[in-house]
């Protein structure tokens, strides 16, 4: 159905090393507009580094990363800013600003960038809090006063508040109980559908992947080793995917336990 569309995000032969450690080793990936792609893979396979390279927070060593046909690698600061205006991200540890109350966290970009009036920004934040199932009273609390699940919901509200065209989710359910994880997954899926956004989610959690994804890609040793439709993941005979989704200790994925 979406095959005729131009990819919104393109990664071609992306390499990134930290000293002698090669993290990304020729990663190729395309994400179509409005698509929700989930990237699965073990710890240390380069998932988070890939997201940070797309955001320009880490400079890739080689290759090409394009968003809407604009190159990210070696882009000027102003070009990078223009691209980042389209993107929001939910961080693994929520990354809420400790020094600001919840409502200022949610309306941060509206207050700083769009210079929205504080009263209006507070009402907007309360509206966004309601959309992630949190009451108005939470608005004036500080992040340290919230539970992990509430923090993740606030972080989700902050990510969707500027109505981004592209959303990144970095292990959104890590550290949450299965019920709260399920709630976050549903909220992510609903937010992506409401905004019509292009989304990349990275996770270890297969339940989360199946709930959020239109398409799933698997990363191993800094390369995509499999990608396919969400329904095809159970049927594939790809040994990497099989080992990962069934949690087998034997297989092509070598886990360094030294």
């Amino acid at each position: 159905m979406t095959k005729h569309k131009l990819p919104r995000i393109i990664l071609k032969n992306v390499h990134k090393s930290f000293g002698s450690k090669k993290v990304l080793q020729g990663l190729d990936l395309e994400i179509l507009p409005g698509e929700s792609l989930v990237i699965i893979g073990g710890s240390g396979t380069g998932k988070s580094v890939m997201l940070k390279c797309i955001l320009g927070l880490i400079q890739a060593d080689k290759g090409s990363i394009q968003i809407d046909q604009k190159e990210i690698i070696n882009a000027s600061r102003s070009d990078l800013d223009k691209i980042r205006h389209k993107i929001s991200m939910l961080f693994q540890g929520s990354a809420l600003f400790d020094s600001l109350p919840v409502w200022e966290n949610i309306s941060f970009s509206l207050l700083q960038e769009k210079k929205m009036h504080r009263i209006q920004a507070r009402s907007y934040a309360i509206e966004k809090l309601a959309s992630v199932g949190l009451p108005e009273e939470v608005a004036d609390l500080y992040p340290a006063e919230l539970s992990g699940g509430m923090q993740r919901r606030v972080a989700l509200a902050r990510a969707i508040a500027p109505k981004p065209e592209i959303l990144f989710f970095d292990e959104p359910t890590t550290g949450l109980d299965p019920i709260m994880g399920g709630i976050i997954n549903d909220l992510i899926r609903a937010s992506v559908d409401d905004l019509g956004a292009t989304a990349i989610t990275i996770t270890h959690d297969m339940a989360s992947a199946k709930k959020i994804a239109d398409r799933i890609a698997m990363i191993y040793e800094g390369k995509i080793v499999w990608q396919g439709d969400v329904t095809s993941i159970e049927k594939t005979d790809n040994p990497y995917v099989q080992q990962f989704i069934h949690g087998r200790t034997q297989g092509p994925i070598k886990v360094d336990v030294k």
Partner: protein
Amino acid sequence: MYFTISSSFIGLKNMLLSNDKNANFEIFEILRMTSFFANVGRIFLNFLQGTGHLIIFINQTITMGIRPPYYSRQILKQIINIGYFSLPVVGLTAMFTGMVLALQSYTGFARFSAEGAVATVVVLSITRELAPVLAGLMVAGRIGAAIAAELGTMRVTEQIDALSTLSTDPLQYLVMPRVIAGIFTLPLLVLVADIIGVFGGYLVSIYKLGFNPGNYLHQTLQYLKAIDVISGLIKASVFGFCISIMGCYHGYYSKGGAQGVGSATTNAVVSSSILILIFNYLLTAVFFDK
């Protein structure tokens, strides 16, 4: 070069294999000397690398900081944090410094009947040296550490990355307001410290040493020149820059979790304190060198 090194190692190996005590002593001496020079070299290279990195950071901060947007709310918050909340500690330091200075100079000058110079010594010492340096060191301990810890925690919990994704430059939003607050609030703190310090000296001189209040005040103002106060305020401004930039630099680049934040805090306080002492000498030389 390679052959020289490898032949040296072969020589060392042969010496190690021999049971000659003199040869073993020589080996230890060679190893001790080479490791000493290697360590000196490593420390020097690290110093050069760190200095270069810091200069790039300062340059980026200034380049980004002069561009809009300007975060006035953040600047005000930092002015209150650095200036207002440091008043008690700086005031107490100045008060006791002025008091002890009066006491010490009186007992010293009494040996050659120069007690009359106490007021002048107190006011010149406080305004030129003690108020800016001691206020700078106290603020380095209080604020330099707090800035490094706050930014360091923000770095390791990805809050600085989150700022970038929210289209906000961390240098403009986090670093520049702290640097501006440091540059402008330290002189105000030092001005207050000048007044409190001189007042401390006055209290001891009048109530403990028995000076006449009118004479003491007259002597305080008689030899005081504008440059004495202004030089102290300029020093304070430079110290404010050193404290805030070192706190921001070490916090901004901290890594490795809680331990990394701890190291960043220590490094911020130590480096800003050393810079305060170095710049104090340099500025004194500029203002008062004949």
